[in-house]
């Protein structure tokens, strides 16, 4: 091979290696989902009410892992559903949270997480009905939880009334076009701390099917079943 060709080949190979390295760093190591900003325009530490809306789906057809269960967050301005689990809320405020539960049931491995804790009044409202606990071992009635350990918040997510019906199959699911018996609406309120900080949240149902003890994959990946609530002022 001629010298110019050899040099060209070497340069191309070098650039390819650099490009692969850069792709790995940017795509896997530095990638974070979008942050939905519910703090914009809200004065912190005034007890202002902020309405945060999420949904949990049996799949995530807008990602590279379509068979992973997933949460979505509604953009506060556009109302569009965003494939992320990161959101920002103001400090010292009251969060009124609505979560649409489209996924089916998986019993809690530790049923103690069927207890509602950390909410105002110690209850969540499932389709408007107040509940302080749900026994996930007594029937097909809990799909996930929404838990923020840093503020002792734990809310079990109820499952659709008809467990044998076909669940929503395309993410993000739409409450407007889905039959009422194919999802549940959970509402609850909690107060954010006055101190700023980042509080991780997670699901306590080991719903990472196909992984050891169900706690791999979506359970350990931002944008699916765990995320951050950033409290700002």
């Amino acid at each position, binding site marked *: 091979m001629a010298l110019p060709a050899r040099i060209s080949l070497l340069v191309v190979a070098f650039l390819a290696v650099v490009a692969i390295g850069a792709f790995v760093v940017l795509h896997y190591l530095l990638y974070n989902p979008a942050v939905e900003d519910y703090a914009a325009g809200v004065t912190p530490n005034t007890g202002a009410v902020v309405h945060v809306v999420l949904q949990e789906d049996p799949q995530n057809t807008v990602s590279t892992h379509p068979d992973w269960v997933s949460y979505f967050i509604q953009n506060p301005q556009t109302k569009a559903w965003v494939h992320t689990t990161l959101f920002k809320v103001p400090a010292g405020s009251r969060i009124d949270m609505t979560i649409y539960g489209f996924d089916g049931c998986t019993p809690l491995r530790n049923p103690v997480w069927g207890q509602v804790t950390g909410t105002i009044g110690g209850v969540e409202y499932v389709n408007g009905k107040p509940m302080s606990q749900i026994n996930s*071992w007594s029937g*097909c009635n809990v799909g996930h939880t929404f838990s923020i*350990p840093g503020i002792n918040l734990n809310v079990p997510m109820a499952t659709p009334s008809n*467990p044998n019906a076909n669940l929503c199959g395309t993410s993000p699911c739409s409450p407007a076009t889905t039959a009422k018996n194919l999802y549940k609406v959970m509402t609850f309120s909690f107060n954010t701390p006055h101190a700023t900080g980042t509080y991780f949240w997670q699901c306590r149902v080991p719903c990472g*099917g196909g992984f*050891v003890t169900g*706690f791999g994959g979506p359970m350990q990946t931002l944008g699916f079943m765990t995320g951050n609530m950033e409290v700002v002022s």
Partner: protein
Amino acid sequence: MAADAPAGAPAGARGEPNHGIRIFIPWLILSVIADVLIWVVWGPHLPPGDMSSSASSQQFDIKVLAVAAAPVAIFVWVYFAYALIVWRHREGDDGDGPAIHGNTRVQATWITVSSVIVLAAFVFGTVQLVVPQGAGAGEGAQPIWKPSGNALQVQVIAQQWKFTYRYPQFGGFQTTDLVLPVGQWVEFHVTSIDVIHSFWAYQLGVKADANPGVDNVAYTKISNTGTITVRCDELCGLWHGAMYNFGKAVSLSAFDTWAKGTEVKLASVTKMLPPYATTYDPTMVAQMSKAMVAAGLGGGAGLYYPPTDPLQP
């Protein structure tokens, strides 16, 4: 060096000072000072403190080992300094030192002292495991060293990424709060329902692995009220760094009030829990079998996961 002295001749014959005494005296003085300082000044502040029997025994162990190690380290430093000062190369002295063919007294002393230190450490370590009932370490499901009398049983259930605590002698309620009494033996039963964790109650000097399917027992007796920092000490996943909580040690009467009150408060939640057991198999939970089979989940027959899922390593 006295290059003209005959090889192997005694030091006195060369008119040299008694180096042994000149090293021994400053070593002795410095060692006594260091040991007193370690025991009296530094010792009470050594980790993990003295909040419990196991913590106290660990602090005592560290004090004893530090007191034993200090003279050894000081001997090395004194000898090093002495050699630098006394046996340094001097201007115009280019001769070789005397040839040395061994010294029976030095060798015998070296072997004897080393043996005594190692054997003493062996005996001391064994006694210090037996006397404080395992010294706060997990002893497995069949502990060798148990305290006498009735102990308060507290089950530590590790799960990603939270510890929960179950009190079987109070109706088996489970809570995220760790509250313990002063003056009573506590019997921890440490287990996990997912991956490997480690229960580390720092101020209590208790550290026990939390393995799925394993009941790891550890004992301690708390002597002072205060805050207990609990951390997971085994890398266990994405939020391992956030797997900590703060417990508290309270008086026996305050604990009794808290436990009985919590038992009543959590009665409805306790009804949802499986019967108390020393382990909870994460791959098979018989109590939920009926619900799972009805929902068409898992592998049936109580298997939590379908047979296609990977097994617990």
